[in-house]
């Protein structure tokens, strides 16, 4: 896995940038009063929502920042969002997508991390009522999961935001891995590979050859 704290932090910030809209106040105002959050409002808490078979499944060692349900949500989202089997693109198993996401999530500042967590929980649980799937996102079959994403892409502001945030985490985590580049002929870094010479600093300007612009006289400190 090629990942550094530098690129994790940047990728996380980019993917989470739409979260700027999702303040707690807006969550209550927009999401919880919309269809997506009806179940949450009715039950008072996410805890009342459907249990899923994935609740009993383990999370691999090495996942440090994603909660159990967040891990499974991203694992399922990656399968749904990147159906690369049968294409020339690099197989999903060869790219540690969720591990990248885990590292990126760990780099988010606390307030953003909290909002992303709340948004993810909403996305997973709201599938029970949003679209009347009766199941959490992690348990939807492929077609229903695709339909669910598509519905959120045209929904209210929180739904559009979470659609973008989850997709961006997954996409960036896959495409940042150099193993994914050869099938699309992306060249990646080239200067060293091509042996391009460094030019160094530009020489000092020859002031006598430049147009002069009439500076004021300025006193230097005594």
């Amino acid at each position: 896995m090629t990942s550094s704290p530098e690129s994790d932090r940047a990728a996380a910030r980019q993917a989470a940038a739409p979260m700027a809209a999702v303040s707690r106040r807006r969550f209550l105002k927009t999401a919880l009063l919309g269809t997506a959050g009806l179940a949450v409002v009715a039950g008072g808490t996410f805890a009342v929502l459907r249990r899923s078979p994935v609740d009993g499944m383990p999370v691999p060692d090495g996942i440090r920042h994603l909660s159990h349900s967040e891990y499974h949500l991203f694992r399922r989202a990656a399968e749904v969002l990147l159906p690369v089997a049968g294409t020339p693109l690099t197989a999903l198993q060869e790219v540690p997508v969720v591990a990248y996401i885990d590292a990126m999530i760990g780099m988010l500042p606390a307030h953003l991390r909290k909002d992303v967590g709340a948004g993810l929980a909403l996305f997973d649980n709201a599938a029970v009522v949003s679209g009347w799937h009766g199941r959490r996102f992690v348990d939807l079959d492929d077609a229903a999961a695709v339909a669910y994403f598509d519905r959120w892409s045209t929904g209210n502001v929180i739904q559009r935001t979470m659609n973008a945030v989850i997709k961006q985490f997954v996409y960036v985590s896959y495409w940042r891995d150099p193993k994914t580049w050869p099938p699309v002929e992306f060249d990646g870094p080239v200067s060293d590979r091509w042996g391009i010479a460094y030019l160094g600093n530009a020489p000092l300007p020859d002031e006598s050859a430049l147009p002069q612009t009439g500076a004021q006289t300025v006193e230097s400190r005594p």
Partner: protein
Amino acid sequence: MSDTADRIDTVEMPREGLAVVQASDISSERLELSADVVIIGSGAGGAVSAYELARRGLDVLVLEAGPYVPSKDFTEDFTESLETLYEDHGGQANTDGDLLVLQGRCVGGSTVVNGCVSFRTPDFIFEEWHRDYGLTDFTPESMAPYFERVERNLSIQENRPHEIARHSMVLSEGARKLGWSVKPFKRNIRECALTGHCLSGCKTERKQSMLVTYLPWAAAHGARIHSDTRVDKVLTENGRAVGVEGRVVDRTGRHVADIRVTAPRVIMAAGAVQTPVILQRSGLGNDQVGRNFACHPSFYVGARYPQPIHPWRGAMLGVYVDEFMHPDKGGFVLEVGGLGIAELCMINEPGTGKPFVEYMQNAPHMAGIVTLIHDHNVGEIRWQGDHKAIHYQLSDKDFPSMMASLKAAVRMHLAAGAEEVFLPSSEALSVTREADIDRQVDKLVNKPQHLRMVSYHPQGSCRMGTDPAHSACDPQGRLRGVEGVYVADASLLPSSLIVNPQVTVYALANYVADRVT
């Protein structure tokens, strides 16, 4: 003050690199410095001011919040570059979260990561400045010597044929078929190596950014540069600037030292988001500080072509369409721009699952157009007590030009032979035939999180003008209400430029530096 011409013969210029005091060089918890002039920020405005004042013999100190990253350390990995070279790790956004506001945050500022496009201020913008802001001293003629200085200093020249990459050739053809005016860009670059990695910093120092031009020149004339040094406040006594205070923070976020600088002149060049924030934190300036923010909200309109294009190969920016530049003709510019794989997977919403995979499989067949509009100054930058906020929503007044620019970009793609043009929205919308352009684009509405916008050009948050009720600075760049504080960055622009602003900022910074007393 010493004579300029004499000094040039005697100054020493390093062949490469820059002498910068970094957080790792600081051993005490408190730093007390003094200078004739302290400059906040080392980007377009800060670097030009530093050189112009240092060569005139002033003791110049430049304080830069970002790190010093020598060119050799640039990785050409966009995701990583966002972290090391950009403000907020590339995640700086408006409060609605649907507009990324990109800015450089490193020694050299945004000039290190910009696309090299170089325009003079359009004549009709100067006319607008006369008419609306009383800025009669700014004319194409009066500013010509400033433009010429920076153009020569930064090797600005028109793209030659080999600098027009495939994406630009294909799209030029589209524009020509439509009978639209299309021109090669001018860029500040020497011997472009055609890597396509401009936005990650130019590793082999061909981009004539401040990092390899004005900053080393300023240093050669004695200017001192401190990186990792974030200024929080401008200090004043009896209505006069007396210096600044801030913090030295290393790359891991560790607070290394407090810094206080005594100086009778302070030049604000922290960019159009940070300059008003620092002034607000300092309680300086009138109620115009932070208002009138504009940013050229842009779309990247991507399309798939039958033939391979490889949008990451060749010079990143080749040609532009100026057919609609004048506000009477639409008030927008179309620029053909390359991009890499990380950006490609984030800019469009081609649909979930299979459509996305197909879209990415076709990555080598993609090309894109960046739209720039002459937006009104409707935004506001505010320090909220513990964080900055960029309040900017696309105004209903600007929405029609945004849509007009999008329709024109789609038409140009289709005329160039594109098979499918993707609309930059949160839902999957695309156009495959000219007859569908209006129907598809008209589905877009001006609501938060519906459009995918990015700004590369924050401007205007401390605008200059003759009327104190409507401007934060006077026509010489002096902040109103306090002596000795100047603004010399993109904050100063009274209205959005419509074209890429770096050359205007260089020229204005030179203009303001000339007027520093």
